[in-house]
């Protein structure tokens, strides 16, 4: 049975053991604020020997409530965060203060880790909501651009190359497609771009880009390479990787600006963990085990620490002409490849950006065969076009009628089903928008399939194919085309669908 503490009679030696082995620091402070006693734990926190502390002025401990957190500064420069508690005690016949000090180093570390995880979570949520927003805007934007590009294309076909209107229409078509690229950059940022995955040797990929890279950067910047001979392959979309390298190089070059400077592009393999990256800003998932890196270092002006977390936010830019989408798209692409981007920079010290990708052993080769454009194709038959956007609907109708189809149009799923039922015997192809009122694309698809399992149904959407496939679970779609598209691309896609079906 345990005796209550009051019944113990402790010898001085036992007291000494308790105090000397206490992991909490104990400091006796006299009314004149000088230290009268310190135990070994307190000496350790204060980074001094007992004889350096005895008689020194400690200060009057002020506690709010029960405890107060303070930082103890050791002579060796080490700072120990502690929780201080104070009681008044009788010491050598006088009323003194006993300050008890509990080491908070581990607690602070776990708090920082918790905060880091919270920030990561908040960042993921922010990306998710921005992704939804960007996806929605890109979708609507692509529908509008579809009408612009298609009408310009139809105009070009009508007027012929000799017309004075030809260059203007060509310019409208080109600007529309550039708008589409911008919308797709937003989709890429949102992690909704569609990568075409290959096994890639990053060093080889960069070597092949050497000329392009040289002409893309400022003439005042000296570009040097330190590329690993045979880095492990990674599973990646080569065109997106090229985009990443271009974004990093362009940013470095623009950071150097009119000054002279150097940019180093290097590749290699490395095993990284978060401990290695404690001084870096990390976004994305750091690969577990061996990873492949692409590094870009520049001797530009560098960045303040508070700027670094913002550089991946869409529309954040420090450049007069920047749109603020380059690094946002970079992060989107890296995340889509299960990789991470880490940044280290200091004002006046240049910037070091590292992309980390997981390595791969299986080599999937997924090269789409080149399909030449149809030069002469004279289709016949009836196409049912179902789209709630009038401009898109009419543009598609005009294109299809021009190449020889008979076209029936419907402005929503319900009308689409009624028209399909009425003309089922003559319809050779259904072109279907994904999001529509009353009855959406998928509902209409299933309703048509109940009547006819064979009629080819092609999807058209302002979303990417990957995003559209998430919204459209049904199987058996004959083809997909993302708006906005060039007339020739549209015709070629339809030709492929009909030839495959036949």
């Amino acid at each position: 049975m345990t005796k209550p503490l009051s019944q113990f009679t402790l010898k001085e030696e036992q007291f000494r053991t308790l105090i000397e082995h206490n992991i909490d620091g104990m400091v006796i402070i006299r009314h004149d604020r000088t230290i009268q006693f310190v135990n070994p734990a307190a000496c350790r926190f204060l980074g001094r020997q007992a004889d350096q502390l005895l008689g020194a002025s400690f200060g009057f401990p002020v506690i709010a409530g029960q405890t107060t957190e303070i930082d103890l500064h050791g002579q060796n420069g080490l700072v120990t965060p502690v929780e201080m508690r104070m009681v008044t005690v009788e010491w050598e016949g006088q009323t003194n203060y006993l300050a008890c000090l509990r080491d908070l180093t581990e607690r602070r570390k776990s708090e920082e880790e918790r905060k880091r995880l919270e920030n990561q979570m908040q960042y993921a949520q922010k990306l998710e909501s921005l992704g939804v927003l960007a996806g929605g805007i890109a979708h609507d934007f692509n529908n509008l651009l579809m009408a612009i590009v298609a009408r310009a294309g139809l105009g070009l076909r009508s007027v012929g190359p000799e017309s004075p209107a030809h260059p203007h229409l060509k310019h409208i078509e080109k600007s529309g497609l550039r708008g589409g690229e911008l919308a797709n950059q937003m989709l890429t940022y949102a992690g909704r771009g569609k990568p075409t995955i290959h096994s890639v040797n990053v060093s080889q990929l960069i070597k092949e880009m050497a000329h392009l890279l040289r002409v893309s950067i400022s003439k005042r910047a000296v570009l040097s390479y330190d590329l690993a001979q045979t880095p492990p392959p990674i599973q990646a979309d080569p065109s997106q990787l090229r985009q990443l390298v271009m974004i990093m190089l362009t940013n470095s070059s623009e950071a150097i600006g009119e000054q002279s400077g150097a940019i180093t592009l290097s590749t290699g393999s490395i095993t990284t963990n978060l401990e290695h990256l404690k001084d870096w800003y990390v976004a994305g998932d750091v690969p577990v085990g061996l990873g492949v890196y692409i590094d870009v270092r520049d001797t530009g002006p560098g960045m303040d620490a508070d700027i670094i977390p913002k550089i991946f936010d869409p529309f954040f830019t420090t450049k007069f002409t920047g749109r603020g989408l380059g690094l946002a798209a970079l992060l989107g692409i890296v995340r889509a490849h299960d990789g991470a981007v880490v940044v280290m920079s200091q004002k006046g010290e240049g910037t070091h950006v590292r992309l980390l990708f997981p390595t791969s052993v299986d080599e999937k080769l997924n090269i789409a065969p080149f399909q030449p454009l149809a030069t002469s194709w004279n289709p016949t038959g009836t196409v049912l076009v179902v789209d709630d956007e009038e401009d898109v609907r009419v543009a598609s109708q005009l294109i299809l009628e021009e190449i020889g189809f008979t076209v029936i149009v419907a402005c929503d799923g319900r009308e689409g089903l009624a028209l399909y039922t009425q003309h089922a015997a003559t319809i050779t192809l259904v072109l279907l928008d994904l999001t529509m009122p009353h009855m959406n694309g998928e509902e209409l698809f299933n309703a048509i399939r109940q009547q006819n399992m064979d009629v080819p149904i092609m999807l058209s959407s302002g979303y990417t194919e990957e995003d559209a496939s998430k919204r459209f679970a049904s199987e058996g779609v004959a083809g997909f085309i993302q708006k906005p598209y060039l007339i020739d691309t549209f015709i070629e896609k339809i030709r492929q669908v009909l030839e495959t079906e036949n």
Partner: protein
Amino acid sequence: MKSDLKLYLPGQPPKSHVAIKTLHQIRHEQLQQEYEIAIIDVLVNSQLAKAKKFFAIPTVIKELPLPIRRVIGDPSEKEKVLLGLELFSST
């Protein structure tokens, strides 16, 4: 007579502004504004902090009038800071 209060803080944690407010309150209410208050961030002025040989941060030091008095801990506790610095209301 010129009198000085110096508050040494570890960077700018959220509690800092409460401590600074409390010191100004003490100056305004208790000391008839005859004290000058300096706020020193030891992360920015690390050399100064080293020279002062602090044991702990936050610390408030009354340098003038002598004797020098310092309090460590939570400077937002007005009454205890006054007691620790041996400053008593002149009202």
